[in-house]
């Protein structure tokens, strides 16, 4: 077990939490606003959360190789979510 593998677990953990958090927020926003745009964002985030969850499960069960490629992919996912999070929070 190397450091990259441990980092993968940390990043996928953060990604999973952020995706479910954003999904809950967007669902609440949709309930209040009933805007279709937000509904789509909610669905996107739900899918993102499911994907992260499955990814975690596959990593634990060693069905995918836990290496540098996973690490890079997860970094991209995390960055996308961070930007989405920032976009949701910024007013205007």
């Amino acid at each position, binding site marked *: *077990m190397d450091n990259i593998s441990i980092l993968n*677990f*940390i990043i996928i*953990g953060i990604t*999973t939490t952020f995706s479910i*958090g954003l999904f809950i927020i967007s669902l*609440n926003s949709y309930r209040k606003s009933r805007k279709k745009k937000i509904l789509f964002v909610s669905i996107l985030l739900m899918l993102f959360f499911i994907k992260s969850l499955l990814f975690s499960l596959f990593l*634990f069960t060693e069905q995918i190789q836990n290496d540098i490629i996973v690490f890079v992919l997860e970094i991209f996912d995390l960055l996308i979510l961070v930007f989405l999070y920032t976009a949701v929070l910024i007013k205007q």
Partner: protein
Amino acid sequence: MKIKKRAIIVFLLVIFVIFTYLNPLVFAETDPDYQYIAGQENSSGNQQQGSPNTDNPMGSTGGNQNKGNNPNDPNQQGNDNTNPTNGKQYRYRYQKRYTIMDGAENYTRIRSRYQDNDAEESFEIYFNIDNTPTFQLSFLPDLNATTSQHYFSIIIEQLIEYNDINDNGKYDSNDGIASSMPMSNVTFTNITYTNNTTPEGKTYTIIETHTTDNLFTIVIYLVSEKTSFLNNTITNKEIKIDFKIINYPFESQTSSLALITQIKTPFSINPEQNTYDEQQNTATQESGLNISSKDHVGFFSWANNVDVDNKTFPVNVTVISESEQIFSGDKQEAYTQNQVIFSYPRGESILHDPKIGVISLLENVIPSILQLEYLSIIYLLACLFSGIVFYGIIYYKKNR
């Protein structure tokens, strides 16, 4: 405010549910035989951890039969460790902090301990020449244990001269045998023990025996810590063996030699192109077999090249597996026999060096046996931490 509280409760519940269902899945899916995950080299550092076995690392532990000279002095020549009071019997004892070797003229028992984190492992390699030269690797609860778990045996069965009829460069069932030398039919000289020192001041022990006609020699190199000598690096988790074949009396003009060895173990054997030592950067150009059980991994590896008349050639190795089911009373035991055949190019002087050792499961970044639990905790902490950060930022934004 109510919606916010509900959101937090739902969020925490979801995380809780995820982990309740995820953990049993994780443990159910784990292959119990999968023990080794490649990691970073840190063996030499770890050997120095933990409490010493004895106050004086070179000191005697008693029971030594040598009286005239100090057998525990690694700088003393092994050949001098003959005890005339014991008649033809003599014993040689060598002790370092984590390695004990006890040897006589017909056997050598090497015990080694390695320590990582708070756990330790000990193993024993028992070499004897009473009948056929045999190496036995066992695992022990500690260095001084009286009971051991037999793990695998390597029997040096015979040397054969064969005519490579199908010209595939290796001995197989289609080839004709011109002559053979079963090791059970030859007499080996008494095992000798010699200590040497590297330019860095590290000692290594050479354990040697050969057939009375000097045709086949087995040399074992033993170290008590990671030591480099003669273009090799070995650790106290393994022994290096040299097989030397000098002046084999060939009966045919075009024949070659093959050395047949046999591995017996109740555990699973997996071929490895990239050996443990290669992963640890202590060796190159090796292949081998890993013998894996639930708790341990041992190995038998060999150099991909052989020196024949001072030239290097690739060695062809054939592994033939055969499984046995033994029924005794109401007990049933499954045994695997693997014949490992080293086919060497023809030459007057052949030198090949295999290794026997154990793979440390505990020397990676985290203990292997705790990896899943450890990773689950890391994952959970990452989720918890990011959840706090996530909520903290929202809370801060709303109350600003």
